[in-house]
């Protein structure tokens, strides 16, 4: 009797059947080479037993992680930070972040007492109801794939209502993002984190009353209704974390970029809510070197390639900050398949002028959209149709290549490079 079977004896018969059939479907899907099977397995399980998620979550301490950007990485960092507690932790590490992905993650780790679940922004209300989370983590909220995602003011309102109805839940929220701060503001227990906000184009106006917000550095306030940035207990300050006692500690992460330092501070705040000491949690967080292929270095014909994923204007802004400085050549790639959003309008929200004067290659299925965008920003570039063409274009002059791609373009390159982890 393996651990899986053991846990199932505690589930009602219908839920047992649902997880068994779901796991079988996941195995078939994996064997057929259609991804890791977590979505199909969870979906079938939910069809057989709609309360499956609540049943699987019962008795566990659940952390939900949401926001437009940084969900996958922060989920990974929180999972690492909670490792000192010992025991298995359930997590949807493959980025399947809707109810089916959560079902799959929980059913494959029946003995895990703690679950850290990346959660799609739209699913927060139903996931809060179903899992009764101990902690909900709100990272940021900005425009993203607007052809299929809900509008962000509406999302913020739904978060606010869901969290106000969950008084036992602790919310760990970014105080520097006005939409997030407003969404968390109705909760009874909030740990406020100054995680910063590089992208501000979606928060010039007060989420409560709509007036133009007053900004002063990271501080913000509304003159009309009085909404303001709440006082924080955790803070990212350059490369250091300042904890609630006021002590600062260098982060020294393996992961690059300001956004990941912010994600790490959030993860430390969550770890504290579970009683894990900062030094212990940070040690684990520093060991995280890549997340689902992101930030990984891979060598191809003598060129070291680093893969960066960004899916929307805020993500591209942070990622362009991570890209190695000139003269390192950069390959930008954009697709517009379903998971990317079919609309490429968002490219016009990204400021590419900082790439002027550099070697820029442009790929992906929608490279013409990107080309016209770069032309408007007076950035010189060359079109390429494959990653090998890009490697060939730079290998004589450079030992490395920075790749920045949106979701399916990233996956295509990752596959072409041999499924890098």
């Amino acid at each position: 009797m393996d651990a899986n079977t053991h846990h199932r004896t505690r589930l009602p018969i219908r839920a047992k059947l649902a997880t068994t059939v779901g796991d079988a479907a996941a195995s078939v899907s994996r064997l057929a080479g259609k991804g890791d099977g977590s979505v199909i397995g969870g979906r079938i399980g939910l069809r057989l037993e709609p309360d499956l998620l609540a049943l699987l979550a019962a008795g566990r301490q659940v952390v939900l992680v949401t926001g437009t950007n940084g969900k996958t990485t922060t989920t990974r960092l929180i999972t690492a930070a909670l490792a000192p507690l010992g025991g298995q932790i359930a997590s949807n590490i493959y980025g399947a972040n809707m109810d089916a992905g959560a079902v799959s993650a929980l059913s494959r780790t029946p003995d895990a007492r703690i679950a850290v679940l990346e959660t799609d922004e739209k699913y927060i209300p139903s996931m809060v109801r179903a899992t009764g989370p101990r902690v909900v983590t709100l990272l940021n909220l900005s425009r993203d794939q607007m052809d299929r995602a809900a509008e962000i003011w509406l999302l913020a309102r739904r978060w606010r209502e869901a969290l106000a109805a969950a008084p036992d839940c602790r919310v760990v929220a970014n105080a520097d993002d006005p939409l997030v701060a407003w969404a968390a503001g109705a909760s009874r227990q909030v740990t406020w984190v100054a995680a910063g906000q590089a992208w501000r184009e979606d928060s010039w106006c007060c989420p409560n009353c709509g007036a133009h917000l007053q900004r002063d550095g990271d501080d913000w306030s509304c003159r009309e209704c009085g909404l303001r940035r709440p006082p924080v207990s955790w803070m990212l300050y350059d490369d250091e974390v300042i904890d609630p006692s006021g002590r600062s500690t260098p982060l020294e992460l393996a992961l690059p970029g300001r956004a990941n330092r912010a994600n790490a501070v959030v993860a430390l705040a969550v770890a504290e809510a579970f009683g894990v000491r900062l030094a212990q949690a940070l040690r684990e967080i520093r060991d995280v070197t890549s997340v689902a292929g992101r930030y990984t270095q891979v060598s191809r014909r003598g060129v070291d390639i680093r893969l960066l994923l960004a899916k929307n204007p805020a993500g591209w802004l942070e990622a362009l900050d991570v890209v190695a400085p000139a003269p390192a050549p950069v390959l930008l790639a954009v697709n517009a398949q379903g998971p990317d959003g079919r609309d490429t309008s968002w490219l016009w929200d990204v400021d590419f002028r900082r790439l002027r004067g550099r070697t820029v290659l442009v790929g992906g299925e929608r490279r013409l959209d990107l080309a016209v965008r770069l032309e408007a920003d007076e950035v010189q570039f060359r079109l390429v149709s494959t990653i090998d063409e890009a490697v060939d274009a730079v290998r004589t002059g450079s030992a490395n290549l920075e790749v920045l791609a949106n979701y399916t373009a990233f996956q295509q390159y990752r596959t072409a490079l041999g499924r890098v982890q």
Partner: protein
Amino acid sequence: MRPLRLVWIYPDLLSTYGDRGNVLVLERRARLRGIPVEIIEVNSDQQVPRDGDIYLMGGGEDLPQTLATRRLLADGGLHAAAERGAVVFAVCAGYQMMGVEFGGADDTPVQGLGLLDIRSGRGEQRAVGEIVADVDPGLNVGRLTGFENHQGVTRLGPGVRPLARTEVGTGNGDGTEGSYAGRVLGTYLHGPALVRNPNLADLLLFWAVGPLPPFPPEAEELAKRLRAERLAAAVPQ
């Protein structure tokens, strides 16, 4: 030469879909012709200048759309400019705002700016996807290609002409797309609508400054390729 003044209205409230693209395309196509450009971004806590040449309005969610309309009615600057013949180009939520009324949150009617004789409300279904529409031949623009993402249905009154006939997509909801009257023009193509429609950009520039000198064709080769690719992808062969 006095610079062409492009006034971008309320990017803090009305910019959700890459609306900056329209500013950048107009700027580029003017500069390619040697016309200097001044870009004025007006936030919702600032006054709208009355002496602009082209006014641009972007998209927005329900609440910002209602707030922006209220402020523009109180400000009066856009109305004064339109009255003296300035060009106004509005997309998506901005297009609805130009009308006599539109549906706000929960589809309650909201008084619009009244610069176009149109009335908008909420339709049954959200229209999301590529749109292709054949522009009024009198405007000499050709076909429009773009992306729409809205739940609006717009009825055109006798004071406006439809901008185009819809071939693919929804537009106003009655087989037409967008509308115009004088130099005020609105469309459901959202965000950077002018990127794939350089002729429409040139129409706005022509309205603002008169006959336009040509520029080297290679400067718009990429835009033409993109336009052809999108039209081929959207229109069933």
